[in-house]
């Protein structure tokens, strides 16, 4: 049943290698190809010995376990796990990069499913040393790698069949997103904000850029990589037709009016036409099972 398909592993490796051009090109050319290929994605992962009590560290990991119908096995999750609402009722552990070994162990898990970024260093080993199985999954930034991750988690918790429907649903909404794409690609600027002092924009090679391309937009920024602080001049140079911003970020700035008060924003085409699309960043940037929904919402927002 569990065939080893090297392409799948290569995709994981490619996602880990963080070549700036990679996720973007993959995301924008492969969305339909991946949709066809996905059911064949198989990963070489052994199932966990005991999935009775699961602790999840990392939002997308938690979402995936819930999407695979194993939410009732989750006995605790980290601070970045905000969805579904049910997980908020479970014991809350530290943010996954600052995990406390004893805190995790106090929940008596039989399996700890962690995102690769979980830390600090040594903590996962401490948990293993206490006799608890720990599995890590890569942090992904492309559709194909996201699909591989769903397969990996499903294989660990023994839900291969459910993974088929999760992936099918994801592809269906990605296909809908593809249909809802604007006819001509608008130049979109992805703004990440946590209050007026901390406004960053997404450069090339970011997961935000990959998402913009999936939703049929072009990143207005091509001069720099990663997230960079927003400057008025850079903003005017980028001249975005539309600004895409996480909902919570928009709230922290005081809504669209607050965003327009940021230096330079009002002078851009997006600012003049008040074209701002608020998105749920938990839906998009983690590349979790709800990625398709998020992309569809963004594509509709870009079109509307």
């Amino acid at each position, binding site marked *: 049943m569990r065939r080893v398909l090297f392409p799948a592993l290569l995709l994981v490796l490619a996602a880990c290698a963080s070549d700036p051009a990679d996720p973007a090109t993959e995301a924008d050319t492969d969305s339909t190809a991946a949709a066809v290929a996905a059911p064949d994605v198989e990963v070489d992962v052994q199932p966990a010995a005991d999935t009775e009590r699961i602790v999840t560290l990392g939002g997308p990991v938690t979402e995936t376990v819930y999407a695979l119908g194993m939410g009732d096995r989750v006995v*605790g999750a980290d*601070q970045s796990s905000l969805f579904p609402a049910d997980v908020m009722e479970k*014991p*809350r*552990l*530290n*943010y996954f*990069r*600052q*995990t*406390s*070994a*004893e*805190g*995790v*162990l*106090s*929940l008596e898990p039989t399996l700890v499913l962690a995102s690769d*970024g979980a*830390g*600090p*260093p*040594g*903590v996962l080993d*401490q948990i293993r*040393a*206490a*006799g*608890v199985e720990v599995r890590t999954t890569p942090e992904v930034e492309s559709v194909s790698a996201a699909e591989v991750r769903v397969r990996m988690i499903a294989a660990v918790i023994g839900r291969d069949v459910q993974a088929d429907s999760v992936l099918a649903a994801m592809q269906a909404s990605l296909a809908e997103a593809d249909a809802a794409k604007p006819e001509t690609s608008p130049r979109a600027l992805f703004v990440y904000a946590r209050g007026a002092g901390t406004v960053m924009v997404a450069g090339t090679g970011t997961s935000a850029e990959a998402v913009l391309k999936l939703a049929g937009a072009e990143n207005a920024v091509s001069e720099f990589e*990663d*997230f*960079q*602080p927003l400057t008025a001049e850079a903003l005017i140079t980028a001249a975005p037709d539309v600004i895409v911003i996480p909902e919570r970020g928009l709230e922290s700035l005081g809504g669209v009016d607050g965003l327009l008060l940021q230096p330079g924003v009002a002078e851009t085409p997006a600012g003049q036409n008040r074209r701002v699309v608020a998105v749920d960043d938990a839906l998009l940037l983690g590349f979790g099972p709800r990625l398709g929904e998020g992309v569809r919402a963004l594509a509709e927002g870009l079109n509307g």
Partner: protein
Amino acid sequence: MTEAALASSPPSALTPPPVETARAELEAAAQRRRRAVVLVLGGLGAALGAGMLASVAVGAVALSPGEVLTIFADRLGISLPWAVTAQQEAVLLNIRLPRVLLGVVVGAGLAVGGAVLQGLFRNPLADPGLVGVSSGAALGAAISIVLGASVAVSATELLGPATVAGSAFVFGLGTTVLVYRIATRMGRTSVTTMLLAGIAVNALCGAAVGSLILFADDGQLRNLTFWTLGSLGGATWSSFAVAVPLVGSVLVAAPWLARALDAMLLGEAEARHLGVNTQRVKQISVGLAALAVAAATAVSGLIGFVGLVAPHLVRLTLGPGHRALLPGAALCGATLLVLADLAARTLLAPAEIPIGILTALIGGPFFLWLLVRNRVM
């Protein structure tokens, strides 16, 4: 009126008391002081012991005192009637115990470092950050966290998870050496220049950390932020084994400085006239303080307040004499940190609170209370 006052006062007030009485009074005072020192140090030692016991026994994973005893006794080859699981044993021996012991070492190191520098600078506001140890360590950690994957690949492979700690330690010490060198001219170190150079170098380190933050991705940024909040959560037997000899040697060596630091309190010139080699004292004091604080910071991140407050708490009760102050500060710092970590681990269990918040939360009000109680009208 003056004459009348003089006439009415008893003659004994004017004539000096016999020499024997004065000596007896002095000796009685010295004895009272010795007794107070023994009492306070004993009290602090007892508090530390109690704090450590409580910390070992209490945590997110529930362990009864009987189970704790059983696990320890089992190590000594004695079997007790309580049944314990392998997991409980692992939690106690591999997670909780090294953490508590590391807390003792880090707390003592920070406090003694602070006490030595406060004595050297004759400034109650001196804390280890002043000579650049903390900001240097922060820069080292930032370099390792942000650039670690690309620049220092070989170092990362060599040290593994200890890369951040190693880098923080080296940069913490290096920054202090730099500050010391800047303040030293023709074999003489100006304490004032050292203070000012420390401020300038701190600013430079801050700028360097700032530019690294600019290049950091989201994950690196979070790691760095958590590092600057401090935590004993990464405690392992190996980090304890690295910190113990470094901090321990400082704890052993510092009391030799006590007399010289007492003399320095009078002023540098006065200390020289008393026969103190002030240049050597400065060199050794800065070196010891930097060693202790760099080692403590490397294994726990930035934990503020302990180095500033612990020596003060002891000074307010025992006075400024360094012979009692140095061991007192070590005990007080260790107790403060162990208790703060106990609170950090348990208040929000299974989540944790960054310990830096708690050291300030516990130390701050207590310090203020002591200040208000002792203020001179």
